[in-house]
């Protein structure tokens, strides 16, 4: 919201007068008077097309009827929106639309929520004057998950415009002409796109519908519950619509949620895991080698007995707990409380360790707040967006939409720094295609680029003038470091030359509202923590850290990565990210929990597994995590787990790890519980229960609470809200629900501390240490890298049939040139060989992938590709890295 004062005008519609901002569309102005002008093709998200002609109105002093969807209001405008003349005209339009619309409402899934049905009552005559044969289309198969019934199409082209203007996909386009015009695909093939479901949702009739739940329901039979999408950290608001305790579809509502009614494939089609037949419905206990169903009573008492024994014999430090970053804040909060108080262990961690902790630590060090610095609103209003190692449309599709909006609608400049190339003409977004300045760098060298950029800041002499007086030492040290670095070195390593680096800096300097993003390429790559600090330095130097509408942001993956860390699920942090080594912080908890706090242990994710392997950790409590499918063989997770005296797995499904467990506890999915997620932006958003728990499954927090009772250390809560309020009491931040309310901005004192001496820590590693050139082994000419793909989020998406239909298996993406050299065609099998092993996969040539690089979707890595990697532990943030490795590609 730019805060310019807009001129107001007053207009009169059907005798009522209203004052509205000048220039808004008449159809919107009328809404403010409660007058809904009928329409089909108009949609507030889309540029008007005025093709349906249903919104005709009579404007004084204008000869012809006008379309309310195209006319901007002007002072003194007088409008008839329901005069006889207008109604007659609309009836005429309606008659034309109905003349070629079939009467198949009884078998149309749109029935009951169809704009045409609704308006037909009001605007059509009782009988039809159309005696001719209706136009009819050849039936086209549109693919497994979207149904295309063009005879119902009213040719408003909303789907087409949405696909272009909002999603930027262009997979759906107008086809043919005249009264056989229709939305369609290249060569009338099956739809290939981002499958955001937007076309289905925006279609006012039943022309485009979901095949996932075809004929399963009538809209009015559905129970509709608003909740938050569990698939990623964008935190989209969605409605889960269920019938007989089964979720049958997902919808979203324009203007609602951080996503403003948009969803991605995962959100719209990724719900089938909820009622998946493989859901765990009973606790399982290992008896004589077999996992057998048992009662909760048995399961919990068994767990309690064994935990008590182990704690008694080896102490709390011999117990570890790992929880998924997909659980709610309430689950996470109770989990760490359970581990710390009940089991007396500080071996607690979450999947956020796999990268996000780098970002949290860095931002906490520099600005004192761990969250994204810019709201989604600020992002769409930025005038420059700098993406560093962030494949944003792939990893965070909805946030990606905000970036596209900034670029396409508001003309923001977009600079991308990363390994990926432009591939114009794709119908699955690649943000590089939208960049004004797409800077392709060698994979894994983003960090070095940042150092180069800092050098350029000094050479361009455009750093924040106030800075030298404010932090002379800081500026001096950086200047020194910068001059020590040579552009040649940077170019040799990254591929970016001096001029390009300078160009970026000039663009940054010119911009007012600059938003900087770091993504997978930085956060999950070796040295991620230090590189993020350097990125902050870059922002500080260029005055883009504190400036209005500016900021540094780190993208998250899982739905509640931000939350679990803030809940204190990490050995180094107590709730509210208080330093677990600070007496004051400990005192705070002690006071709050009225019990003293022995922080025994303190191992992180990977360390726990290694300790288990060494026999130092005897019991592991895994909640929603499946290390066996995540870590490369090299880590020897299996060996580690097999040495445990007790392995408890709490999950929706029986995972690979679960098969080794002594005890398996069935947990509820997000759809069955209440609580909150904190999205990457820092919005604390409420989950609501859409269906009853599946089988005997229970909410994670309930299980902790029950288990605590069994262990004679009651942690009693009536419901999730009670935990929420405790969280709010404990973490003042959580007294505010909306990120926009609290100052997620720079905490002055902290920044000053950083500028004074904070920066000195690790300065050597960050700057003066000469950047190592990635050694390329001729035996392994390709770099294999793993990362997310748009259509999957992990185990949940792999259990969602529709998403599996869209993306059934892991395809190794390879540059077409490389594919040609190797004589590889789409879908051909290849062997990937690294020094650590071999995996066999199919290839998918994609111009987006740079030469000599191959990209594999992480969700499918458990089938073998992960084992090609070796793991490197970050000495500071203790984040395990296994992002890239050198491989050879051989055709099979």
């Amino acid at each position: 919201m730019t805060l310019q004062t807009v001129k107001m005008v007053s207009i009169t519609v059907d005798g009522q007068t209203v004052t509205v901002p000048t220039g808004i569309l008449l159809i919107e102005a009328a809404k403010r008077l409660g007058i809904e002008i009928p329409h089909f093709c108009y949609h507030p998200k889309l540029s008007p097309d005025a093709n349906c002609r249903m919104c005709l109105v009579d404007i004084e002093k204008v000869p012809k009827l006008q379309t309310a969807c195209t006319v901007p209001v002007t002072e003194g405008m007088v409008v008839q929106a329901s005069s006889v003349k207008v109604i007659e005209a609309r009836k005429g339009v309606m008659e034309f639309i109905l003349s070629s619309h079939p009467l198949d409402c009884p078998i149309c899934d749109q029935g009951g929520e169809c704009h045409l049905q609704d308006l037909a009552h009001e605007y059509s005559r009782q009988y039809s004057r159309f005696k001719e044969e209706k136009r009819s289309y050849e039936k086209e198969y549109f693919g497994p998950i979207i149904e295309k019934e063009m005879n119902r199409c009213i040719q408003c082209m909303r789907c087409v415009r949405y696909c272009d203007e909002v999603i930027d996909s262009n997979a759906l386009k107008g086809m043919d002409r005249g009264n056989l015009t229709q939305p369609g695909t290249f060569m009338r093939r099956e739809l290939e796109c981002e499958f955001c479901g937007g076309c289905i949702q925006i279609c006012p009739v039943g022309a485009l519908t979901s095949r996932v739940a075809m004929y399963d329901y009538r809209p009015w039979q559905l129970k509709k519950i608003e909740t938050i999408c569990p698939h990623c950290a964008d935190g989209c608001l969605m409605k889960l619509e269920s019938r007989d305790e089964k979720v049958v579809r997902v919808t979203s509502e324009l203007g609602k949620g951080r996503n403003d009614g948009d969803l991605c494939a995962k959100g719209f089609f990724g719900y089938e895991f909820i009622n998946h037949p493989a859901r765990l419905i009973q606790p399982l206990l290992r008896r004589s080698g077999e996992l057998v169903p048992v009662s909760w009573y048995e399961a919990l008492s068994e767990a309690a007995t064994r935990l008590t024994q182990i704690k008694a014999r080896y102490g709390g430090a011999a117990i570890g707990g790992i929880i998924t970053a997909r659980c709610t804040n309430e689950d996470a909060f109770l989990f760490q409380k359970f581990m710390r108080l009940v089991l007396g262990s500080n071996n607690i961690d979450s999947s956020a360790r796999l990268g996000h902790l780098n970002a949290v630590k860095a931002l906490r060090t520099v600005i004192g707040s761990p969250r994204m610095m810019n709201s989604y609103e600020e992002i769409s209003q930025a005038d420059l967006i700098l993406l560093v190692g962030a494949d944003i449309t792939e990893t965070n599709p909805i946030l990606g939409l905000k970036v596209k909006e900034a670029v396409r609608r508001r003309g923001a400049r977009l600079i991308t720094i990363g390994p990926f190339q432009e591939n114009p003409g794709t119908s699955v977004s690649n943000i590089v295609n939208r960049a004004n300045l797409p800077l392709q760098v060698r994979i894994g060298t983003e960090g070095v680029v940042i150092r180069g950029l800092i050098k350029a800041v000094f050479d361009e002499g455009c750093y924040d003038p106030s800075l030298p007086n404010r932090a002379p030492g800081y500026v001096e040290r950086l200047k020194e470091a910068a001059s020590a670095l040579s552009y040649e070195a940077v170019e040799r390593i990254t591929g970016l030359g001096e001029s390009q680096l300078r160009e970026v800096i000039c663009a940054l300097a010119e911009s007012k509202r600059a938003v900087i993003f770091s993504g997978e390429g930085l956060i999950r790559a070796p040295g991620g923590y230090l590189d993020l600090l350097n990125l902050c330095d870059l922002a500080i130097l260029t005055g883009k850290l504190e400036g209005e509408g500016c900021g540094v942001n780190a993208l998250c993956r899982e739905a509640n990565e931000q939350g679990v860390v803030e809940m204190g699920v990490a050995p180094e942090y107590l709730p509210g990210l208080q330093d677990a080594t600070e007496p004051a912080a400990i005192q705070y908890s002690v006071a709050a929990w009225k019990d003293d706090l022995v922080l025994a242990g303190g191992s992180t994710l990977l360390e726990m597994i290694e300790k288990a392997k060494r026999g130092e950790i005897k019991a592991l409590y895994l909640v929603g995590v499946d290390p066996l499918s995540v870590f490369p063989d090299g880590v020897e997770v299996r060996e580690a787990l097999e040495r445990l005296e007790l392995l408890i797995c709490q999950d929706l499904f029986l995972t690979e790890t679960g098969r080794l467990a002594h005890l398996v506890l069935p947990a509820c999915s997000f759809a069955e519980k209440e609580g909150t997620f904190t999205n990457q932006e820092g919005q604390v958003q409420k989950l609501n229960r859409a269906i009853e728990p599946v089988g005997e499954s229970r909410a994670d927090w309930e299980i902790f609470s029950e288990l605590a009772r069994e262990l004679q250390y009651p942690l009693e809560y009536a419901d999730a809200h009670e935990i929420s309020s405790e969280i709010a009491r404990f973490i003042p931040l959580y007294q505010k629900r909306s990120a926009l309310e609290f100052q997620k901005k720079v905490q002055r004192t902290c920044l000053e501390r950083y500028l004074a001496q904070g920066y000195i820590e690790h300065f050597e590693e960050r700057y003066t240490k000469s950047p190592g050139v990635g050694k390329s082994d001729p035996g392994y000419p390709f770099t294999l890298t793993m990362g997310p793909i748009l259509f999957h989020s992990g185990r949940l998406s792999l259990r969602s049939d529709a998403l599996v239909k869209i993306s059934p298996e892991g395809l190794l993406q390879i540059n077409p040139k490389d594919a040609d050299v190797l004589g590889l065609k789409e879908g051909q099998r290849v062997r990937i060989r690294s020094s650590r092993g071999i995996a066999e996969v199919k290839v998918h040539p994609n111009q987006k992938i740079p030469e000599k690089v191959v990209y594999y979707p992480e969700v499918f890595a458990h089938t073998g590709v992960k084992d090609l990697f070796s793991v490197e532990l970050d000495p500071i943030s203790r984040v395990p890295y296994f992002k890239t490795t050198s491989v050879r590609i051989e055709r099979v």
Partner: protein
Amino acid sequence: MLSEKAQAEITEIVKRYPVRRSAILPALWIAQREFGYLSEEAMRAVANLLELNPTQVYEVVTFYTMYSLKPSGRYVLQVCRTLSCAICGAMEIISHLEKRLGIKEGETTPDRLFTLRYVECIAACGNAPAMQINQDYYENLTVQKVDQILNELATVGKSSLASGPFMCP
């Protein structure tokens, strides 16, 4: 694939416009000239050259009637059937053609020599009835003339009856 020459031509034409996409009609004409029709490859090639999604090319192709998605005969007879021609004998011409070639609208003769199409007014009304064969106009048609034209095209590959620069009367 598009020939080097064709690609060069298109890249030249792109320079005429501030927006690459604008070159799509000319590019499609060139592609159609190369292949005789717009095959999938042809459309993909155009899409690549103009940095468009193939669907953005296809939507255009399906809107304009002169682009053809399937191979047609060597000579495409486009007979005008709009009012002025229709009242001046186009219907006789049409039924004669259908009889002589043994095909109907949209069809191609087995020897793949002639494709028959009926089109709307081609701006030759003063010399009605008229038709366009590939790029040439043929006007003031009579059944006899039509026979001569078809014979000449079938034998020597061009007809002496093609119109020159237009002047009427």
